[in-house]
């Protein structure tokens, strides 16, 4: 390559049944929140993202547009697309997570027979992973 380009700092193992777009958006926001991608850092171009993750360039384009629109990324003229400061949550997001998502999760945990301690340990482990102490 004759020009410098940013690599994609996450991998994608396609999970069946979910749209590729959703999976890539999730992986990207996860790596921003975990600190693997820092604000101001360059984000992969459409072509690089498509080639790295083996996805259709149109999907890669949609992902980047979506991340810009949701303010995870911003366009700096002359530089390209860079990681923005994590956007503030929309009003209601917190409420939705703590009520609805947790309820769904608890129901599912009960169904598979996990007990409260297992669940709390798993959440703590997941929380630590996301702190991005790397």
């Amino acid at each position, binding site marked *: 390559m004759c020009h410098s380009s940013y690599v994609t700092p996450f991998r*994608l193992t*396609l999970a*069946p*049944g979910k749209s590729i777009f959703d999976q890539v958006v999730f992986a990207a926001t996860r790596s921003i929140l975990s600190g693997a991608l820092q604000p101001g850092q360059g984000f992969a171009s459409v072509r690089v993202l498509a080639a790295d993750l*083996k996805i*259709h360039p*149109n999907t890669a384009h949609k992902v980047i547009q979506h991340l810009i629109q949701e303010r995870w990324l911003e366009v700096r003229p002359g530089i390209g697309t860079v990681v923005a400061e994590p956007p503030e949550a929309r009003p209601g997001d917190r409420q939705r997570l703590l009520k609805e998502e947790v309820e769904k999760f608890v129901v599912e945990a009960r169904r598979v027979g996990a007990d409260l301690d297992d669940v709390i340990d798993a959440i703590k482990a997941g929380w630590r992973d996301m702190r991005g102490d790397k």
Partner: protein
Amino acid sequence: MIIETENLTKNFWRHDAVQDVNLSVPEGATCALIGANGAGKTTTMRMLVNVLEPDRGSARVLGVDSRQLKAADRLRIAFLSENQELPDRLTVAEYFEYLRTLYPNWDAALEKQLRAQFELPPTRALGKLSHGMRMKAMLIGALSFRPKLLILDEPLSGLDPLVRDEVMSGILSQADETSILISSHELSEIEGCTTHVAFMVHGRLLFQQSIEAMSGRFREVTVTAAGGLDRNRLPESWLNPQFDGSMLRFVDAGYESAQKLDAQVRQRFANVLHVESTPLSLRDISKSLMRATRQES
């Protein structure tokens, strides 16, 4: 539609290679043509580019009847197949010099970039290239004139994982400007870039759909019951049912919702404890379709 066929049919001796295929590929799509060996994928592709003439029916490619494709149309269509013949005595460099003269729309910068990326030895004769390098050379030949339509017959077969990656990234680098029809058995490799799927069985087109619609209607289902399950007559859309005591496993090819599936299962079996359905990858969907439609011969 960039490709549209109408009752496309080809018989070899008395064997129906392709039977009444109505294939439509929308512009901009990357359509995976999938099917077991001998399903008619290659024959279909060869008719699209007029290497073979249909016995019946017709194909329109870029709006032109495949039998009427002119030299000017050929400048917009690339066809790559693993058993394509190359001028073996030419060196890599001579081959591309030759191609450059054939295509007024040749993009020399792209050729140069891909040749550097693929590390093709310029002085080596084409006949002395490994299979992987031959495929790379053909792919550069197919991509460098920036075709509107790329027809790829098994571009990944016989390649090692590293070369497969390189070939895929070459294809992907142009997928946004080109419509692609690709046949491959490397389904995990192509799933991410596929927008549409066309599935062929014994010379016929079983279905064609967007990949989202297709993944939406296939689920692997496990039914657990208290006590044994009777081998009732099952719906035709339940593929490859396997009974194992109080368990039944199958692939539902007509899945709509968990509620509906649950009701269908409980309607047939009295003592159902649990119905679980999980989505499937393109590879697993294809495997179950191939298994379900395998002909006993």
